[in-house]
């Protein structure tokens, strides 16, 4: 039985994770502590939930860099609502609606005005952060107030069950749902088709504009979920909540085999990518390295991951081309032989 490419690609990420894990486990004494594993999962879940949303956008051939802004805006709103004593389901719902609306706005802008995703979401990211600034608590003179949430029910979202934070469970559930949608439903099929070849999908009757808007909406909603749980953990929201998370999530997805440009990758890959990125961050702090070297190390490991991805892509590309050429040649030979025979008769 042939092993699918997707599977091999995942083995690469998994392999890198195992290698890193082994290195850290042997060289950094505090790495294998239960608390550290819990902490890795918590941080990975924050990135990972955003990755779930980002993977929809990326597979559909887009990119969303406004995730940070959406997290900031929805997180601050969640913080305000929780502070005035709203029960957590209401807070979560409102935040998700806001996140989804932000995502919808992204998608609408991009499809309605035929804008470039990259620049558009970069810009809307600022806009959403601005909305966050508007929504944040201030006193009469306009001084920003750091607001500590006292709402016990809401703070429960940031707590853990035997050391495993609720956000981790949410992450796993969302990943499974995303995997199901992407691989088992018509919507998922159309997402891949759109990312792989948007024009032919359109010609096949896929409503590409609607699909694109919906992927951005999903991404926005996921960001809001991540934001709510993070705010609950940190007991407050602040202006640079979520800053840099957009890029982080995209990088994690790419490391996990979700292709920039669309059509390739899946939710499980994004899941692994998030773990990988967090692992790199977590492990490198253990060595007491100089700050500058921490950055070099972090960048180098991500580069290695992406290089192995590129190597793999080149390898499968060659394999595909070879297969296609072989098929071409076989067809041609058969045909010519048949024809030569027919001609001689």
């Amino acid at each position, binding site marked *: 039985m042939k092993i699918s490419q997707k599977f091999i690609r995942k083995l690469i990420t998994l392999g890198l994770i195992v290698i890193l894990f082994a290195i850290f486990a042997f060289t950094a004494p505090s790495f294998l502590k239960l608390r550290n594993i819990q902490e890795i999962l918590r941080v990975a879940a924050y990135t990972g939930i955003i990755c779930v949303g980002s993977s929809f956008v990326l597979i559909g051939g887009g990119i969303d860099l406004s995730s940070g802004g959406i997290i900031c805006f929805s997180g601050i709103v969640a913080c305000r609502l929780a502070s005035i004593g709203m029960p957590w389901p209401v807070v979560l719902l409102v935040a998700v609606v806001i996140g989804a609306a932000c995502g919808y706005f992204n998608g609408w802008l991009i499809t309605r005005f035929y804008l470039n995703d990259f620049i558009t979401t970069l810009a809307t990211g600022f806009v959403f952060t601005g909305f966050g600034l508007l929504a944040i608590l201030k006193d009469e003179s306009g001084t920003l107030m750091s607001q500590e949430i006292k709402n016990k029910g809401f703070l429960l979202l940031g707590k853990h069950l035997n050391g495993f934070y609720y956000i981790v469970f949410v992450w796993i559930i969302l990943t499974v749902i995303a995997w199901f949608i992407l691989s088992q439903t018509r919507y998922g*099929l159309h997402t891949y088709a759109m990312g792989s*070849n948007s024009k032919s999908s359109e010609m096949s009757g896929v409503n590409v504009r609607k699909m694109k808007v919906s992927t951005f909406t999903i991404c926005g909603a996921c960001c809001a979920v991540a934001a709510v749980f993070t705010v609950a953990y940190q007991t407050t929201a602040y202006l640079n909540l979520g800053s840099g998370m957009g890029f982080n999530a995209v990088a994690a997805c790419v490391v996990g085999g979700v292709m920039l440009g669309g059509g390739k990758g899946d939710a499980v890959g994004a899941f692994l990518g998030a773990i990988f990125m967090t692992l790199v961050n977590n492990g490198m702090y253990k060595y007491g390295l100089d700050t500058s070297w921490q950055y070099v190390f972090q960048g180098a490991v991500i580069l290695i991951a992406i290089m192995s991805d590129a190597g793999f892509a080149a390898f499968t590309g060659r394999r595909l081309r070879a297969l296609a050429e072989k098929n*071409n040649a076989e067809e*041609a030979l058969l045909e010519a032989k048949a024809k030569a025979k027919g001609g001689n008769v």
Partner: protein
Amino acid sequence: MENELILRTENICKSFNGIQVLKNVNLEIKKGEIHALMGENGAGKSTIIKIITGVYTKDDGEIYIDGQHVQINNRHDAAEAGISVIYQELSLVPELTVTENIFLGHEIMKRGLPDRKEMRRQVQELIDRYGFILQPDTLVATMGMAQRQMTEILKALSTEAKLLIMDEPTTSLSASETEQLFVTMEGLRERGTSILYISHRLEEIYRVTDRLTIMRNGEIVGVVDSKTVEADTVTSMMIGHELEKTGVRVPKINKDHYIEVKDLQLGNLLHGINFKAYGGEILGIGGLVGSGRTELVSCIYGTIKKYKGSITLDGKPISRSVAKNIKAGFGMVPEDRRTAGFFPQLSILRNIAISSYDRLSKGGIVNGKAEIEHTEKAIADYDVRPHMRKLPVQNLSGGNQQKVILARWLSRDVDVLILDEPTVGVDVGVKAELYVYMRKMADKGSIIIMVSSDLAELTEVSDRVLVLHNGTIFQEFRDHKATQQGVLLASSGVTAKEGEVL
């Protein structure tokens, strides 16, 4: 009579910005026929197709399908009416399987989820019914061009199309793949499907179609029986005047000016290649896509550098640097002009001058006046239309784009010109012009190497033809002895005697 027609259009008219592009077009296609539509670029072929398929809306006129009057306002209406289009650029999604592609956009659902088993079953049924060589679960990315085309056709058939429209389906196919497609088309005809076939290649029209409608300047100028009509008649109807025949000529070969390739080896793509190309002749290189043709010329030009063996120009080894080769007088018209040939957003001026800045600039600063003079002369010499040097090349027709690339090299009097599929997507009139320019270059003493899948072009234009098969030179045809059949067989690794007609 009426119910023999699958499609009838009545006085279709269409204008863009006040310019009438279609004038009272009455197109009639019978049930179960392969009907060809020909015309030069801009004759209105694609406009009428786009109206039938609902991409454009007509200004005036009626459309009848099966004798029924229908309104076609969008693609969906066209599909409902049973019209399907096989696009020029294949519209398959490479990351999906055959089944997924065929049902893309109209998946069979079961309890809210796509019913993969059922879809697969239906695809298998279709494959069996039409006798295609396909597997429902193959990833499109792993398939050859012919198989992809089949998938495309199957996709159209899955929606129970009564009329298939094929817009230049053979441009990306090699000769034998084309033949395979024709067999498929004939099979469909037998089952009663009508096909509207658009092509620039006359030999294909003869080979496979029943009737032929010719358009010129937005009007239908004639409907003829394509089995009996003379080629000259068709071309003169298309372009409105007679074509000059190039005729057989004796090339003035200069044995002292040559490129010699010795023991060329490139990975497992090319091995043991030995040949000489002389000044004054056009050397044709044939073979299937993937036989190493493009790699061979890339080695000569210098875009591929890692080859083993020697390539010499007049006894001196040539450089492996493209820039140095251009300086030494090399020129290259690449296969995929859209991606490798021209700069779509840049003007005609820049596209022509781009390779000549070594002559048009001093100390790195471009001499604007010389640049304009150079380009204007080239535009006039090679009749690039419109004569507007500032126009971005993406706005030109395919033929004129090709002329721009040719003009880029010809205007600097290249010594060695390599052409890879120079006339793909170019209409008959322009083709003939391009051949004349190539011949003029050769007569000046330049070495011209032309790779082509177009058998007619290969056999008629080249003075000598080398056919590659699996990375080696399989056969050489000298002195205009190449025949289309012979080249086709050699491409597939079967030897035919020179000049033998099968």
